[in-house]
């Protein structure tokens, strides 16, 4: 598969249909890289002309802003918007709900106006349009799946149904956790917690959330965020269930079933 950079498109005077914003986790984290590859495989198979920014992509500034470092956030935002506007980018898709939230809600005030989609919404549309066809009796047929709402896709932006619709296309049994949708519980990574030790407490947030997921009896915990994926995987390991229960991003599940 050939993945082209935006600079290569620009050099040949072409525009891609969509810019795939990979995000820091998707770029560097080994677990999240698998999600990135899965998503690009889908785009490639479907024949969508997409680009990445490659080395020109930078952190959106989300963890800095939420930790309280507005100055650093504004620096990152300035640089990213400068790059994107320089290429005349109109449409962005990302596999990270934190990046999605920044693009959708926080860059517009700074002069960055793009049509942005989270990959689960993007996949749902591809399935609805018949561009992605899932194999009959695919890898997940009849399996029990539970879905973890990430805070910044769910409460943050009210996207609850698109990812569930993708899961329903697998012909699986979707079992909701007690805390789901607008009452979903955080995995513990948001607000820059991913980058520091948790404050002192009785237990870890991801341990609790993973336990809630395990209580459903599901063998697959579907996620939509690279940070949730990491946190929940650690939580499942803590319960020594990693051999029987897998935490997967929805993109990985789609890629496996095409």
């Amino acid at each position, binding site marked *: 598969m050939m*993945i082209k950079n935006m600079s290569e498109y620009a050099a040949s005077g072409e525009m891609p249909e969509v810019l795939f914003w*990979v995000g820091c986790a998707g770029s560097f984290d080994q677990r999240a890289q698998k999600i990135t590859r899965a998503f690009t495989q889908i785009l490639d198979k479907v024949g969508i002309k997409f680009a*990445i920014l490659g080395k020109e992509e930078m952190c959106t500034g989300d963890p800095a802003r939420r930790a309280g*470092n507005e100055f650093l956030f504004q620096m990152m935002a300035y640089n990213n918007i400068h790059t994107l506007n320089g290429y005349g980018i109109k449409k962005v898709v990302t596999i990270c709900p934190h990046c999605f939230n920044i693009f959708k809600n926080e860059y517009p005030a700074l002069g960055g106006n793009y049509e942005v989609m989270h990959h689960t919404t993007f996949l749902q549309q591809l399935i609805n349009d018949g561009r992605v066809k899932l194999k009959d009796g695919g890898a997940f047929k009849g399996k029990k799946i539970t879905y973890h709402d990430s805070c910044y896709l769910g409460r943050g932006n009210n996207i609850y149904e698109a990812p569930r619709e993708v899961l329903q296309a697998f012909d699986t049994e979707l079992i909701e956790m007690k805390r789901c949708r607008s009452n979903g*519980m*955080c995995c513990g990574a*948001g607000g820059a917690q*991913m980058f520091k030790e948790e404050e002192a407490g009785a*237990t870890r*947030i991801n341990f609790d959330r993973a336990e809630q997921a395990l209580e459903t009896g599901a063998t697959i915990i579907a996620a939509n965020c690279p940070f949730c994926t990491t946190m929940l995987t650690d939580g499942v390991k803590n319960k020594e269930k990693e051999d029987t229960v897998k935490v997967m991003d929805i993109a990985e599940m789609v890629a496996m079933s095409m």
Partner: protein
Amino acid sequence: MHLVQQILFIILAAAAIYIFAKKVREMRRNILLGRDEDLNDNKGQRWKNMILLALGQKKMFKRPVPAILHLFVYAGFVIINAEILEIFLDGTLGMHRLFAPMLGGLYAFLIGFFEILAALVLIGCAIFLVRRNVLKVKRLNMKELNGWPREDANLILITEIILMALFLTMNTADQSLQKLGAEHYTPTCPFWITSNFTGMFAGLSAGTLVAIERSCWWLHIIGVFAFLNYLPYSKHFHILLAFPNAYYSKLMPQGEVKNMPEIQNEVLYMMEPDKAPPAPAEPAEHKNFGAKDVTDLSWKNLLDAYSCTECGRCTSVCPANLTGKKLSPRKIMMDTRDRLEEVGKNINANKEFKPDGKQLINDYITVEELRACTTCQACVEECPVMIDPLSIIMQLRRSLVMDDSNAPQEWNLMFGNIENNMAPWKFSPDDRDAWVNG
């Protein structure tokens, strides 16, 4: 005799309203100590929020049992207060059941309806007392409620029970007097509830009954005036502030953090000096980045603090609190109100604020609490009256990091990585697309 009662009533009413208005003005002044923020856009949506969330209590119904009980108490409180209008006019004009002759059969229907509501309020408050003190519902028995907040809650419930009991006893005595054909006691159709209880007063003389009826009437209205003046000192003030608070609530997506144009401009000035707006001729006095004290917060944050009724729905869904961290969004709101009240008292005593060496951060809210937040917005989503604890947490975090350079070591490393490697981890930016070959 009537005239004395009339004069007494008018003095009492005037005093109650005067003292209440004075305290409300003081609260308004305190709220306006906050940073200016324009929240007058999109009026249609704002009215809709107020009607659905404050009047309609839409979010309460996520938890049906307390929602229904609360609806009884709320409807009772609001609707029975229509009866206060009659009590008020009766008291001022020295009349008795002024509206009875005008409304005829409708009057007995209205009073009957009020009586049913009064009984529901009574039952609702009794169950609430049981939930707090016997069943010990977790969110109503957390340590931030120790002391005054717990007493406040019980006092409100007990007062409401007493007021409703007085109202119902008064009507029962009235019905008995009507049966006796006592002077002044205008005959009405039987009231739905109390007409069945006149047996309670069987055999009492008209004089005793009048004494009972008048005592209840006076105690009830004195109780109402006292309660009115208790409200501003209590969590119960939410019955009024829920309305403006819902009206002025955040309309943008919950995930969005408010921009800081002053820092945006500073970055712009650094990157493209020619494009940045010109610096103001006179440098503004140094404002904190973010907030250290209540006066650095927006007036809406302060309105939030006065609107909080300490129900703890926010804390009961907070992932940090649920896993034993010190953060409790309810405590953030209670601390903000306590500090604001302290600042207000300081102003009352000194004409203007005299620095007292205290601030919201550290003296009320600790760094540990602020650092435990995952910004998951569960608290914001949960609040029935649209309080936004996350907004306060974010502003306090900004002050910690930007004014005091007070961040955990790991965050400082993360900041450094973002600045130097354009990613929160220490990877080379040249490897950002290395996954393509993996």
